[in-house]
């Protein structure tokens, strides 16, 4: 039974989204809070991630937008006095913070009990040595290194662990002297070399090519255990599980292997003493039942979120209940609501998780996949065949791929190398290789070590594709696309289409394979390429419907249909021959009452689109439900709250392609579809859905198109007399040159229809422009390049608003701290604006009103402005919710999405009386970067977005809000008397930084500066020490030899903070600045690369001593 002495519980969140710690913890935290509140327990949440669902009204009783760090957590404990604390729901951030509070005695001092897994168990799993020792006690095998100091010892160690072994020279950088040995002779040779580098050599069993398998295990305080799910990585050991395609359940394990590892997982969780949930990762020999335990995570994880979504078993919810003292047998299966929570889900489908990378956003980053994680998001696809799940997943990652086949041709110079050393393109390289006669499955296996079962399945997709391709060419009988369908109907056997659909082919893949795309291209010259692709796809769709080949809707019910369930957790599949033939087998009976409102989700998290759109989607669902409509969500991102089946009336965990969305619309026959809360993916569907007469709620498709299409938008602005930076869509170099001649450098260059500035850049001179255009031309072969005048030293201002029939109902104006040039997703934003002229605000309001009216806006929208003095220019307008909606909604305490949803549902709303000028406090949104995960990437900010997450903090003053926000994203206040390294860029930036530098000097900080900056500081009477740029270190110049080297100072940990401002925005080479910036990141030294942000931060920490920051919950800001 539950522990009745607990009345108030503190839950630690995970802070900003970063690589390795993303939306999954919003999901697990939200679930835990729900589990607690259901018990009548008061909940307190610390999480500065303001865009999350868990930090929304009604999820926790008290919410603190403060850093998840021991100092702040202690202060909150001191104030709130909770009886219990939950550490397992906020990722590594929460876990580390909790362990620190435990070690420092804070928890004991305030009588706070850690609920669930005891801290000692956490420590046992986190500390490598303790962990190995602990598992040795129960004879469970782990990966261990034997330290050897002679060749003889190495030989003995190798014998003990068994060949093949890996040899590592200890204390040697960069893997010098390391390698694999298959036998003693190889070991002798390598060991000899290794001892030349190092006095100590580590011998470890080589697990190269072993399978990687995970189990999610749950234990209650009565020692009852279950494993909820197991998962198998498609990629063998060596690639981080976050970088691997993962399937659930395991596919290549026999019953004996499956249950051997399952039994071990239970043995381990019992011995460690977990109460709640943990994850056990194994390496499994592909040639025997031999195994090693890689690690145990004593907390909810990305894998547990995936397992919850893959099975329908709410791990976090159950783990929270177990933490309160319940036994598993006392809880119900959340899906069936009748059977017990003590059971193991039986799947009757296969799930495929695929990572989403955004490496092209980073200059200089290593693209090879390895033991550290680089992906920024993931998708989960569900199917009744592996091929279906995989092909769905490859479409879901949203990188222009149509599945495993029929994609644009990849250029891979060395396929063998690309197979052997995988990059983010791995799976497509396999596809390419399979098309070549010299790569049979054995060869691909040798190079990739991907289990042959997976390779055979992939090959199966190619075989079906080949059969589609062999269909006789389809020609229009009368030269129109209209007759193509009849021609296709004659040419292609219905069973072949059925089979293709069962194995995950999209209508477009089929269209391309049978040559329809080419035929449409020939017939419909003049349309854009995208439109032609769409037409070709429509032909197949029509054909398929004519033949009655339709997907069926299946439930995820945790019991493989063994017990009846009412679950609303759904996916679509072609399932089977008879399913696709007779259109039978739906698990859902549709009401056809026109009460469904479909909200389109935001898809995979990626740079530029993440948890904030999940928040928007969830808010829309809440309102729809409250207003008595049936809320329906389509989304496929397992890291989200919007894919929690509890949050809506029907959840389709499926693709957001036109094809799939229309399949669902055909079944739901909805009252309407909301496309404006899920970011760019649904926004881009609007026009196509409109063509099919789908009722789009809110702003109409033609108006959305008018905002998206640069030319139309521009014409509209001209018409209403609103300014914008001069721009032109250009197709030739001469045109570009003459345009630049007219407006002058710098210019901003970008392709149309982009989100978060992919392939966008600022060019300051002709050389840069030419070099960049070569790059961009590849990206947008069929599109003109848009060049616009780039205005320097301008303020950037955001308008987030809701309008009804073209009239603004509510709005929030916020101001960037950085000047224009830093992508709005990376900028630090303050709301309400603190330093805008009243006149500027007035003009922005007026222009926004004009635009809202001209575009007949009916719902949420966002306009980005640039202002120099009171000169206002429109940069961009999105007729959808923007990234900053949750931030401004929460600071303003006015839920703009709720309001917008009312508008879109055409319900009466009152104009909110709230106004941003009434606020007595300030909100700051700061960005989280993950450069430390992205080896070699230049951590400099530009017009292309690079941040992976954000926080929003509230304070009584800008300084307080900024300070807590900056601390929340990992900055640290340099210690008293500490040292700051400055290189403050060009003249304007140097001037902008002068006051801050003076403040630092006055307050006892020691300043180091590279010589230009140093000269400038000295000239202005600020004491400092000159340091050498990396390039100056070997220079013979006299003044240089005296000075210390910047890099050395960093390496010696003599620097507490680095301010390094690049002189211009375009330099991508390995410059001096790059080296300093990169070393700062690699050594975990706080780095700021923007003068205005650096000044603001320095000012904040000097003006506001940490212990004067008031500990106030969101509720307390009135």
């Amino acid at each position, binding site marked *: 039974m539950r522990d009745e002495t607990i009345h108030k519980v503190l839950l630690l969140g995970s802070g900003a989204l970063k690589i390795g710690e993303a939306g999954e913890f919003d999901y697990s935290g939200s679930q835990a809070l729900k589990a607690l509140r259901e018990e009548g327990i008061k909940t307190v949440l610390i999480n500065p991630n303001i865009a999350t669902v868990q930090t929304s009204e009604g999820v926790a009783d008290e919410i603190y937008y403060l850093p998840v760090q021991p100092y702040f957590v202690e202060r909150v404990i001191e104030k709130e006095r909770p009886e219990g604390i939950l550490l397992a729901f906020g990722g590594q951030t929460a876990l580390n913070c909790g362990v620190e509070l435990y070690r420092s005695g804070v928890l004991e001092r305030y009588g706070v009990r850690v609920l669930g897994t005891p801290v000692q168990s956490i420590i046992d799993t986190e500390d490598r040595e303790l962990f190995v020792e602990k598992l040795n006690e129960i004879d469970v095998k782990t990966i261990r290194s034997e330290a050897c100091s002679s060749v003889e010892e190495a030989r003995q160690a190798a014998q003990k662990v068994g060949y093949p072994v890996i040899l590592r020279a200890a204390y040697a950088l960069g893997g010098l002297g390391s390698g694999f040995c298959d036998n003693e002779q190889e070991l002798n040779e390598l060991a000899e070399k290794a001892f030349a580098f190092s006095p100590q050599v580590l011998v470890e069993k080589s697990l190269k090519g072993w399978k990687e398998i995970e189990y999610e295990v749950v234990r209650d305080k009565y020692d009852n255990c279950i494993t909820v799910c197991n998962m198998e990585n498609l990629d063998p050991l060596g690639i981080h599980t976050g970088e691997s395609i993962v399937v659930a359940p395991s596919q290549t394990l026999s019953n004996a292997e499956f249950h051997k590892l399952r039994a071990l997982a239970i043995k381990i969780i019992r011995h460690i003493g977990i109460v709640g949930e943990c994850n056990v990762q194994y390496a499994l020999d592909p040639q025997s039942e031999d195994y090693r335990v890689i690690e145990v995570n004593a907390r909810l994880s990305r894998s547990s979120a995936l397992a919850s979504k893959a099975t329908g078993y709410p791990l976090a919810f159950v783990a929270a209940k177990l933490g309160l003292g319940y036994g598993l047998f006392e809880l119900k299966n959340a899906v069936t609501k009748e059977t017990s929570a003590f059971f193991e889900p039986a799947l009757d489908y296969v799930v495929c998780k695929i990572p989403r990378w955004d490496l092209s956003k980073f200059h200089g980053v290593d693209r090879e996949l390895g033991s550290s994680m680089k992906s920024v998001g993931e998708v989960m696809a569900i199917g009744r065949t592996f091929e279906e799940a995989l092909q769905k997943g490859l479409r879901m990652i949203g990188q222009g791929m149509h599945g495993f086949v029929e994609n644009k041709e990849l250029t891979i110079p060395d396929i063998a190398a690309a197979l052997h050393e995988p990059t983010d393109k791995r799976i497509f390289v396999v596809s390419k290789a399979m098309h070549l006669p010299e790569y049979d499955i054995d060869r691909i296996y040798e190079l990739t070590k991907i289990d042959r079962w997976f390779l*055979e399945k992939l090959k199966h997709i190619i075989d079906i594709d080949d059969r589609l391709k062999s269909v006789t060419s389809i020609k229009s009988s009368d030269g129109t696309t209209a007759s193509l369908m009849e021609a296709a109907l004659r040419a292609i056997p219905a069973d072949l289409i059925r089979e293709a659909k069962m194995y995950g082919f999209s209508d477009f893949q089929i269209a391309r394979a049978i040559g329809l795309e080419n035929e449409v291209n020939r017939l419909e010259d003049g349309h854009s390429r995208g439109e032609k692709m769409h037409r070709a796809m429509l032909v197949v769709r029509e054909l398929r419907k004519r033949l009655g080949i339709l997907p069926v809707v299946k439930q995820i019910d945790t019991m493989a249909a063994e017990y009846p369930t009412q679950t609303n957790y759904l996916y679509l599949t072609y399932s089977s021959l008879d399913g696709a033939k007779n259109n039978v087998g739906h698990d859902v009976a549709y009401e056809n009452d026109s009460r469904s409102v479909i909200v389109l989700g935001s898809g995979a998290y990626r740079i530029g689109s993440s948890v904030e759109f999940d928040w928007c989607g969830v808010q829309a669902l809440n309102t729809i439900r409250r207003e008595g409509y049936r809320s329906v969500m389509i989304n496929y991102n397992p890291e989200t709250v919007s894919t929690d089946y509890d949050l809506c009336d029907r959840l389709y965990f499926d693709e957001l392609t036109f094809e799939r969305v229309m399949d669902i619309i055909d079944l739901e026959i909805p009252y309407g579809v909301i496309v404006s809360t899920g970011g760019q993916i649904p926004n881009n569907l609007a026009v196509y859905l409109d063509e099919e007469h789908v009722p789009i709620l809110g702003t109409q498709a033609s108006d959305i198109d008018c905002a998206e299409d640069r030319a139309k938008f521009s014409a509209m602005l001209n018409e209403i007399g609103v300014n914008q930076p001069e721009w032109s869509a250009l197709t030739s170099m001469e045109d570009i040159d003459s345009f630049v001649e007219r407006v002058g450098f710098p210019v901003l260059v970008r392709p149309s229809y982009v989100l978060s500035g992919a392939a966008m850049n600022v060019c300051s001179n002709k050389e840069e422009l030419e070099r960049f255009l070569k790059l961009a031309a590849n990206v947008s072969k069929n599109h003109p390049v848009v060049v616009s005048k780039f205005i320097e030293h301008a303020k950037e201002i955001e308008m987030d608003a809701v309008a009804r029939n073209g009239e603004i109902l509510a709005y929030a104006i916020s101001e960037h701290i950085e000047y224009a040039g830093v992508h709005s997703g990376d900028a630090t934003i303050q709301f309400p604006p603190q330093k805008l002229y009243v006149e500027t605000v007035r003009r922005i309001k007026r222009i926004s009103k004009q635009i809202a009216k001209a575009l007949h806006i009916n719902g949420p929208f966002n306009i980005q402005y640039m202002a120099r003095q009171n000169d206002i220019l429109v940069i961009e307008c999105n007729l959808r919710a923007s990234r900053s909606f949750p931030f401004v909604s929460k600071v303003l305490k006015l839920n703009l999405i709720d309001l917008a949803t009312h508008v879109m549902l055409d319900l009466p709303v009152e104009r909110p009386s709230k106004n941003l000028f009434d606020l007595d406090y300030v909100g700051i949104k700061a960005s989280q970067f993950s450069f430390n995960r992205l080896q070699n990437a230049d951590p400099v900010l530009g017009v292309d977005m690079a941040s992976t997450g954000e926080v929003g903090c509230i304070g009584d003053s800008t300084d307080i809000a900024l300070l807590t926000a900056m601390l929340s994203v990992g900055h640290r206040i340099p210690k008293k008397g500490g040292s700051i390294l400055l290189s403050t860029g060009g003249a304007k930036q140097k001037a902008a930084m002068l006051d801050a530098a003076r403040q630092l000097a006055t307050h006892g900080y020691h300043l180091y500066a590279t010589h230009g900056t140093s000269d400038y500081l000295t000239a202005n009477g600020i004491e400092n020490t000159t340091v050498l740029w990396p390039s100056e270190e070997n220079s013979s110049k006299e003044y240089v030899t005296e000075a210390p080297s910047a890099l050395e100072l960093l390496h010696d940990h003599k620097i507490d903070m680095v301010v390094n401002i690049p002189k211009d925005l375009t330099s991508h080479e390995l410059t001096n600045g790059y080296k300093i910036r990169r070393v700062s990141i690699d050594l975990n030294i706080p780095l700021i690369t923007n003068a205005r942000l650096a000044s603001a931060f320095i000012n904040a920490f000097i003006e506001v001593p940490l212990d004067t920051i008031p500990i106030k919950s969101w509720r307390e800001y009135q």
Partner: protein
Amino acid sequence: MKKAKLILEDGTIFEGWSFGYEQEGDHCATSADTSGEVVFCTAMTGYPESLTDPSYAGQLLVMTYPLVGNYGVPPQEKWESDRIYARSLIVSDYSAAYSHWDGRESLSEWLIREKIPAITGVDTRRLTKVLRERGVMMGKIEIGDASTTTNLYKPATEYSSINWVERVSCRSVVRYNEGADIKVVLVDCGVKANIIRCLVNRGCEVIRVPWNYDYTEMDFDALFLGNGPGDPNLCGEAIDILKKQMQRSDKPIFGICLGNQLLAKAAGATVYKLKYGHRSHNQPVRLVGENKCFITAQNHGYAVDAQTLPADWKELFVNMNDGSNEGIQHSSKPWFSAQFHPEACSGPVDTEFLFDRFVASIKK
């Protein structure tokens, strides 16, 4: 691949492709062999174990997990008997290519060798829902195009009218691990090999006797009642011998699955047929009166009516999903049984300790 279909006795038809044995010539000639009781199993692994489990005799096995055949077929020493007992296998997506270090042949090759028809491409979820809602029923596999097959099926005999135990039990006494300290008589109603392994591994000599063999005069230390197919109400002979044994001796008895039902019948309780049985790896059972719960592997279509147990017997385990009986024990004598499969194979191994408990009760 040839088209194939499953016809249920209620007239529902499922189409797919054949990937097992295909009888040459007139399909009608094979109809007797390809019909049986259609049952579904929700386990995600273990098709070689299930197919060779004699408890599936006379049944057409539907796997709810769609991907089957992935790891091929292991060598015979890893099977649960020496052949396939299920009449047919019905799956959603057969993996023609398999991959496993211990795989000796593909599932399809094996099925063909053992003359077992099989269908892939079936919406097994829809099929499962039919069985769940209308109860298990007879069905028949037909192979060939619509033009050559019928759409009607009337079973000649009902599954439950046949004494399946008699058909699968051994014909004579077999001894394993001869000379071991403990002698256990195992009543073979269709026993799985892993039960014998579990006993042998614990130092028992196993004396495997036919289901209706009178072992009461033999020299042994304990009695084991194994699993088996079909309706226990048809196993009168076995129950009579068991009653005789229980009257003359207090020697330990341990029963599994059908063994649980036979023990209950011998004690005087009744056994009834479940609507669609328990066939899975995820059945939760609770130790009655305790907070101890176990995930178990199950394969049974009949259950003990715990209400009918006499006073000196009590329920040992209960199913946490539907409350059905999962085991019984005598209140004073070392007699107990489990409806689930502590020997697993396939399935979770969490309750294997019951064998330890059995052996300990013998040594006492």
